[in-house]
């Protein structure tokens, strides 16, 4: 079994999908982006550090570390990461739910924002039935109203303000 694995060369995509290769590339990308974004910051000297001294120093450091991690990833055998539809579903739905909540909380108030959050968030898993989602939404509205509005007296709008 292990002999068979050793003889078949991993495909280029499988090498790219190793966690260390991807992390190395991620670090390099962030560092390059940081260096580009800070290209106009005054650097100054060690005695009189300018705005850009620390950012550029750290970006170069991250770039170097990214290269090392990438190198390790390329050399060491590791199972490639596989993306699953379930993971994409979770990422998209959880992010959408939170973004919708953030955009609506001031405009539409807590009640509608919670409805949006539970509605979009429930799409993250197939296990949740529509009836359960509805019950969860109502329960969460009651719970957060009693804790945050009634109990702690936070100034969050509850209903849309027209």
């Amino acid at each position, binding site marked *: 079994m292990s002999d068979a694995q050793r003889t078949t060369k991993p495909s280029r995509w499988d090498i790219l999908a190793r*966690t260390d290769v*991807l*992390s190395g590339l*991620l*670090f390099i990308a*962030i560092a390059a982006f*940081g260096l580009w*974004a800070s290209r106009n*910051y005054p650097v100054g000297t*060690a*005695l009189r*550090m*300018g*705005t*850009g001294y*620390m*950012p550029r120093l*750290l*970006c170069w*450091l*991250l770039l170097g*570390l*990214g290269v090392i*991690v990438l190198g*390790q990833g390329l050399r060491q055998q590791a199972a490639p*990461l596989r993306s*699953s539809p*379930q*993971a994409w*579903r*979770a*990422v998209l739905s*959880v*992010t959408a739910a*939170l*973004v919708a*909540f*953030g*955009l609506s*909380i001031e405009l539409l108030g807590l009640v509608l*924002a*919670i409805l949006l*959050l*539970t509605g979009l*968030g*429930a799409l*993250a*898993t197939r*296990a*949740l039935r529509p009836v*359960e989602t509805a019950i*969860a939404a109502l329960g*969460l509205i009651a*719970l*957060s109203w009693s804790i*945050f509005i009634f109990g*702690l007296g*936070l*100034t*969050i709008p509850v209903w849309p303000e027209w």
Partner: protein
Amino acid sequence: MEFFDNLAIGFGVALNPANLGFAFVGAMVGTLIGVLPGIGPIATIAMLLPLTFHLEPVSGLIMLAGIFYGAQYGGSTTAILVNLPGETSSVVTCIDGHQMARQGRAGAALAVAAIGSFFAGCISTALIAGFAPPLAKVGQSFGAPEYFSLMLLGLIAAVVLAHGSIIKAVAMIVLGLLVGLVGTDGNTGGTRFTFGIRELTDGIDVATLAIGVFGVGEIISNLSRPEEERSLIAQKITRLWPTGDDFRRSWRAVLRGTALGSILGVLPGGGATLSSFAAYALEKKVSRDPSRFGRGAVEGIAAPESANNAGAQTSFIPMLTLGIPGNAVMALMIGALTIHGIQPGPQIMSERPQLFWGMVASMWIGNLMLVIINLPLIGIWVQLLKVPYRFLYLAILLFCGIGVYTVSNSASAVLLAAFFGVVGFVLMRLECEPAPMILGFVLGPLMEENLRRAMKIASGDPMIFVQRPISLGLLIAAALLLLVVALPAIRGKREEVFQEG
């Protein structure tokens, strides 16, 4: 005796009915999130951080501290009964704890875990009370160069003690330092990495980052996997009291675990998780019959459970005496203090004795409450374990949203947290531990400020760091630590080469 006067002040504060209530709430919430897999103390403390704005500083800290050490108690329950760690700090408790439960001795395992934790809690509280004042005195003589060297040592220690890849841990710290730079530079007034977004000019709040990475990121991460089958031990837990044999076997393990946890907790980057792993390894090494481990050895529960509680509590020492966070939870505690305009550091003890001693006293009371919450009421927590994750994540997500919104009263912070949620998920997927990032994020601005101040004092001469004896000592310690890491790494590499050849 000044010591007893101080303790009297502390108990005066901690026994105040409101503060007793907050200690209880903290212990309950801590146990709850400890029992529930999929939500940890970092995310919870970050979510509740905004609420402490409305409380007295000492009450807020008492509650947040209760969550941290309460989670160490609750985590063992899930580990023993379901073979799933409720927290990362109880991963090793699963090994022998669940075996004991399968042998019908779940009650004894739970009791040993709780009693060990309580003993460790008492000792480490006493250690904080005893060692913090002299340490704070030392801290008062520190100038900018000493602080910079100390924080450097802290970051290096955090890397050395992190599990997993060391290079990746360093990269995560650097990433955290970079995220900490976002906003306006206090010294020159220039903005950094704000990309013209007005909301970013004040910088990113630690709560937003922590809720995003640990709260939201964890939710995505849990949902992206199929839900684990939870094989709850079905039998009723009847006998809670351990046998005489259990006591005989475990008392030394509890002592060793407490000692190891107390030491590792003080170290930067240490804390609960590292302590429990180290304690389990130590127990296996000193045992006369190591083959018993993994088959329900009671020492395998007693030592790590004592160690994680001791480590959780002693990690408060550097935060309270020097104002330096050793782990992500302490970084959030510093956030809680600064919300109230309190600058953490050696002056806290002399300027705000009620805050310091009140918190120390409340830790002891909280530990007492936790034994009661965890042992007689174990049935309630077992019921809770039957709630599937799909009913929980919506509530956790909502609390994340409300928490971020209230911390700054800005909707844009919620969008930022959503972004960090995706970042956190990606990092976890790539096996990059996000905890060092938070540490870098909090320490970054502090280090930059002290570095600049030191350079000003020395008019640009970097030799100031080696000319001051304390600073030199700290730097030597940092260099030694780096050397220690380098050696086994080299050895490891060579072994790898040999294996392949």
